[in-house]
């Protein structure tokens, strides 16, 4: 938002006396703090016009007035009741500006601050800075159609709809009025010659620019128009300045960051170093009880006043991160204050993981074989029905996760995302149609997942099980049904995971070649596939499948095995 400033040589017409600063201070709370700030400005040689919201209690106002009575260059402007987002704030500023120009003829620059804006550097530094740029108007002013940063979905509509009531007074009515105007296509004409601009209300204008805004012959017309613009304090001067100044430096000299609600960020004691390093002139807003900041700033003048440029980038980065944390959160995190709805997770999991199905059915020692060849934690069947098979088969897994299947199944999504988030390394897990299937859609729609499946491999343990054939047939029917449903998920249009799917026949035809590719994909050395893991015997599979067919079950996932069961040859290339 803030552009890099370009340097301007000090103008030769600069007055011998240098600039004099006028401060318009808007106060509505924390008057003791405002009093303190006013004294800082006055001691630095600035002229002040103070506006106190009419809603502030008379006793507090009287205290502030008497506390500041000793300073000759502080005057108080007519009090208005200001409502956030309404024209009353602009009117208060206009009144104060008129008073300023009227009472202090030597003021060359006028700056708007609030009672909770803390000067960080000596006022003399700001004067030295202004002396270097004597004819510049420092006001953030961005065309409304280009901003893209205002909050609440209203950009240009701020200027084309009417806003007779404030958002904070009656949110429902506000929204309904906006809605109605949108529906009936009611819009207002923007006065000729105005191009809506937006920006921070904390500006610093030169006297001539401010004067020509105040004395503009169409000012009544503009004031009437802005009276029903939404948040005019961010657009009135920002728009009108474009009529009267050609030397606009579109940035604010006040460090003020806003969050999504349009609420300014607050600085606390622990921001002290950050603020000092920012070299900004003024920071907004200060927590009124941040005593360490109030006693530390403004820094005393040491030697010559420094016109050095502010460097707010680091502060801005920190606050932008906070905005992102609030809006986007951390991928793969489910916790007490972040519990996204399905598909709003902004990252279902926090890092890549691999689901391998069928491999351990073919290779009994697959886990240890694989873990020697890639940089990853290779678990067993973490979704197994009986218990979670963590790497090492301990009762307690990463992060204190329990191996209890019942605990896992209370919140499987939380289980898997905890496992992935708490482990620094890539997690690899075995999977099978014998396991709990509750995460199939979650994983299939997760770009972090890599799902490698040898379909029908679950038949291999059945082949060697020695169970009665009736039981085998029942189990095969069940597992096939489950795997078919899973494959349907993996073939859906919503698939985001990366998948590799082979049928058992395919895989057995060239296990070495496929494992080599798998190792390469998982970041291992493909040549390490030269030593194949011990593979279960699959001779007899063709006959086995034929028996299933004869029993009325059609095997759909195993691929081609000759019914006569000619000896399969394993390639070892």
């Amino acid at each position, binding site marked *: 938002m803030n552009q890099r400033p370009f340097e301007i040589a000090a103008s030769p017409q600069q007055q011998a006396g240098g600039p004099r600063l006028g401060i318009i201070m808007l106060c509505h709370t924390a008057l003791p703090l405002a009093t303190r700030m006013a004294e800082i400005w006055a001691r630095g040689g600035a002229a002040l016009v103070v506006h106190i919201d009419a809603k502030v209690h008379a006793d507090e106002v009287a205290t502030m007035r008497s506390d500041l009575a000793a300073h000759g260059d502080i005057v108080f402007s007519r009090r208005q009741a200001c409502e956030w987002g309404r024209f009353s704030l602009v009117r208060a500023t206009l009144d104060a500006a008129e008073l300023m120009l009227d009472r202090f003829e030597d003021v060359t620059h006028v700056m708007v601050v609030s009672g909770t804006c803390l000067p960080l550097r000596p006022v003399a530094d700001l004067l030295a800075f202004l002396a270097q740029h004597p004819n510049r108007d420092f006001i953030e002013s961005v065309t409304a159609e280009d901003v893209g940063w205002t909050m609440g979905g209203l950009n240009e509509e701020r200027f084309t709809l009417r806003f007779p009531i404030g958002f904070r007074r009656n949110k429902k009515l506000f929204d309904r009025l906006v809605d109605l105007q949108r529906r009936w296509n009611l819009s207002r004409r923007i006065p000729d010659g105005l191009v809506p601009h937006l920006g921070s209300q904390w500006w610093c204008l030169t006297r001539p620019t401010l004067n020509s805004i105040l004395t503009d012959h169409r000012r009544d017309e503009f004031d009437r128009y802005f009276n029903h613009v939404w948040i005019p304090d961010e657009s009135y001067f920002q728009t009108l300045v474009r009529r009267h100044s050609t030397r606009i430096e579109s940035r604010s000299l006040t460090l003020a960051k806003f*969050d*999504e*609600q349009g*609420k300014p*960020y*607050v600085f*606390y*004691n*622990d921001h002290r170093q950050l603020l000092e390093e920012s070299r900004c002139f003024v920071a907004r807003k200060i*927590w009124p*009880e941040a005593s360490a900041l109030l006693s530390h700033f403004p820094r005393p003048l040491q030697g010559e006043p420094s016109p050095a440029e502010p460097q707010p980038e680091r502060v801005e980065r*920190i*606050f932008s*991160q*906070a*905005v992102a*944390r*609030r*809006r*986007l*959160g*951390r991928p793969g*995190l*489910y*916790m*007490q*204050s*972040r*519990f*996204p*709805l399905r598909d*709003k*997770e*902004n*990252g279902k999991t926090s890092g890549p993981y691999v689901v391998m199905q069928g491999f351990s059915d073919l290779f009994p020692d697959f886990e240890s074989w694989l873990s020697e060849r890639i940089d990853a934690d290779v678990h067993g069947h973490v979704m197994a029905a009986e218990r979670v098979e963590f790497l090492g088969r301990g009762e*307690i*897994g*990463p*992060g*204190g*996760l*329990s191996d*209890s299947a*019942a*605990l896992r199944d*209370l*919140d499987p999504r*939380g*289980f898997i995302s*905890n*496992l992935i*988030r*708490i482990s620094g390394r890539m997690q690899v897990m075995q999977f099978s149609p014998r396991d709990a299937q509750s995460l199939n859609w979650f994983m299939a729609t997760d770009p972090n997942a890599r799902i490698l499946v040898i379909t029908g491999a679950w038949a291999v343990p059945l082949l060697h099980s020695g169970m009665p054939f009736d039981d085998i047939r029942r189990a095969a029917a069940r597992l096939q049904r489950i795997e078919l449903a899973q494959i349907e998920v993996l073939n859906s249009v919503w698939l985001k995971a990366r998948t590799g799917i082979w049928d058992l026949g395919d895989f057995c035809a060239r296990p070495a070649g496929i494992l080599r590719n798998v190792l390469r994909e998982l970041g291992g050395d493909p040549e390490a596939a030269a030593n194949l893991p011990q593979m279960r015997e699959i001779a007899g599979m063709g006959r086995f499948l034929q028996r299933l067919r004869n029993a009325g079950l059609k095997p759909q996932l195993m691929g081609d095995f000759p019914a006569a069961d000619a000896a399969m040859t394993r390639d070892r290339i």
Partner: protein
Amino acid sequence: MSMRNEKVRLPYFLDYYRQKGVQHFLIVDNGSTDGGAEYLAQEPDVSLWTTNASYKDSRFGMDWLNWLLFRYGRGHWCLTVDPDEFLVYPHHDTRPLRALTDWLDASAIKSFSAMLLDMYPKGGLDEQSYREGQDPFQIAAWFDPANYTIRKNAEYTNLWIQGGPRSRVFFRDEPEKSPALNKIPLVRWERGYAYASSTHMLLPRSLNVVYDEDGGEKASGCLLHAKFLSTFVGKSAEELERRQHYADSQEYMAYHSGLNQAQDFWCPESRRYEGWRQLEDLGLISKGNWA
């Protein structure tokens, strides 16, 4: 807060919260016999109510607390905790509670989530004995980092969090019975508010929506739970005797059988507590946009 026979905990408890900026303590004493009530009566910033009525019949003390909140809480930020619960929140080492509640006010947030984090020592509970006034987390310095289950309660819209050491040690076969860890202890109280079940959930239900559902993170803290100290074994026997706790004190029965076998909560995955930033990194709490 309501309490019974917690005198040994009180000095540190009051100190801790005074330092955070709590201005006044409202405490219901349920028939303490350890001198705790007398101790509290002398503290200038404590208002004390005493009763010998049944804890169970008052819905585990919640009726008493709801009345106090209704009577005195209106318009204030009220923190409702047990004597063994210690609130930590983002920046709590540099910013008092008042900074947090000012920020919550400015953000139009009315309730603040702080899930219960069970803390435990390394080794048996009776190995290190807790002295009055001591920081309990010098002993109970460990916690489980990432084994919490979360489900949404459709009726009250609150999250239902379980897990941690109690789940993995005592409730691995019946996790549904594991105690709830979700808590919303800090609320800007208004007429018409009420805690529905302990501080786990509130009415009206909108106060329970302390979580973001679009992927963002709201600010949240933790209640460090100093339950598992040397004082616990005796306490659990006493509470089991009284049968005044939730669901016929099943929880205490489970503890007692477990603890009698000298159960140690510590495991190699346990983390030693280092501060709120560590909890934030682990994702147990969040700064949200409070930078």
